């Protein structure tokens, strides 16, 4: 019979007092738990990529108006077919401009082909380390990246480029959580 034998005493001439713990209910409980968890299991996992729209809000009269120098922003130009152009701008002033050749790496998973740009990701990481303004873990602001695309560019290409822009990571907060260094937004024109 399924059970656990628990012996106590029995030496020195006294009668052994055995007791068997019945494990059948526990096995039933475990089988029920496993069945429930298997039936309710969610195996496919979707994720998301942030892209904040910078919509100007109403002025806040409580905040003192102090003229602040504009932050440096990284503009990623993807309209050319053979290259990407990374332009650091501070307001209207162009600080730096670099061209990155457009070498896509195709990843085939069954019927789905995903294009990735590892060279672009590496270059953006280097650029952020050299020119990024918000790198400290206690800094709550993120560096801004503006994506310039042609109106006919397919969404999957846009996602591939945004994926490359999100490659550089930085520490954030006291817990040193790793988050993307850039916050991506789209250019209207």
């Amino acid at each position, binding site marked *: 019979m*399924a059970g656990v034998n628990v012996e106590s005493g029995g030496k020195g001439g006294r009668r052994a007092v055995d007791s068997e713990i019945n*494990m059948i209910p*526990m*096995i039933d409980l*475990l*089988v029920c*738990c*496993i069945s429930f*968890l*298997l039936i*309710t*299991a*969610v195996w*496919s*996992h*979707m*994720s*998301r*990529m*942030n*892209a*904040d*729209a*910078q*919509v100007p809000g109403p002025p806040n009269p409580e905040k003192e108006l102090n003229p602040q120098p504009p932050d440096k922003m990284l503009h990623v130009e993807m309209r050319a077919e053979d290259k990407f152009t990374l332009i650091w701008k501070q307001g209207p002033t162009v600080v730096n401009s670099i061209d990155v050749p457009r070498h896509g790496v195709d*990843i085939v*998973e069954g019927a*789905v082909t*995903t294009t*990735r740009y590892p060279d672009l990701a590496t270059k953006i990481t280097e650029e952020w380390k050299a020119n990024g303004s918000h790198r400290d873990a206690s800094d709550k602001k993120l560096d801004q990246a503006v994506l310039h*695309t*042609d*109106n*006919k*560019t*397919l*969404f*999957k290409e*846009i*996602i*591939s480029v*945004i*994926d490359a822009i*999100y*490659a550089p990571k930085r520490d954030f907060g006291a817990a040193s959580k790793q988050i*993307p260094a850039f916050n991506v937004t*789209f250019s*209207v024109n």
Partner: protein
Amino acid sequence: MAIHEPGRRLMHLVPLKFVQKRVGGGGHRSVSAPLNLTSMIDFLVVMVVFLLMTFSASGEIPLDKNVKLPKAENTVDMVDAPMIAVNGSQVLVDGTAAGSTRAIEEAGRLQRIDELFNILKSKRELWKATQGGSNKSFPGVCILQVDQMVPALVVKSVFQTAAFAGYPNVSFMVGQIPKTERH
């Protein structure tokens, strides 16, 4: 051969036959065999622990069947927010039709989608009516489920419409590519 007087017999006064057989060595093999279930219980416990760790209380995320999502590596976890699906020609908000993309593609320029704007605005007002009493500020988060073949013009139009309706924190829903080691 000499005849001897028979000696004492064990348990001959006990009337129960099965006791006599047992004590006298009846000769039958026992049909019951002990089964060690310890390893099976260990296996079940490990299975339960594994399934509990991978259990997701948020459940399945509704995915529009006409939308084929692109994949990316540098992603963050999903959140619970209004879902705007954009397939080849339709825009849907939580399953409700909210406009067509054909007008945008034909015009060839960025424009606001009025039905989408109105639906999102009413969702925002409903949120304020139900939760406006508390000190929470409106999160303004929405998730775009966009088919990978949709052109950028449509994506930007939907994005801009959502932003002007009070949802500036837009996220794109994507499939997950396993993270690669970077050295």
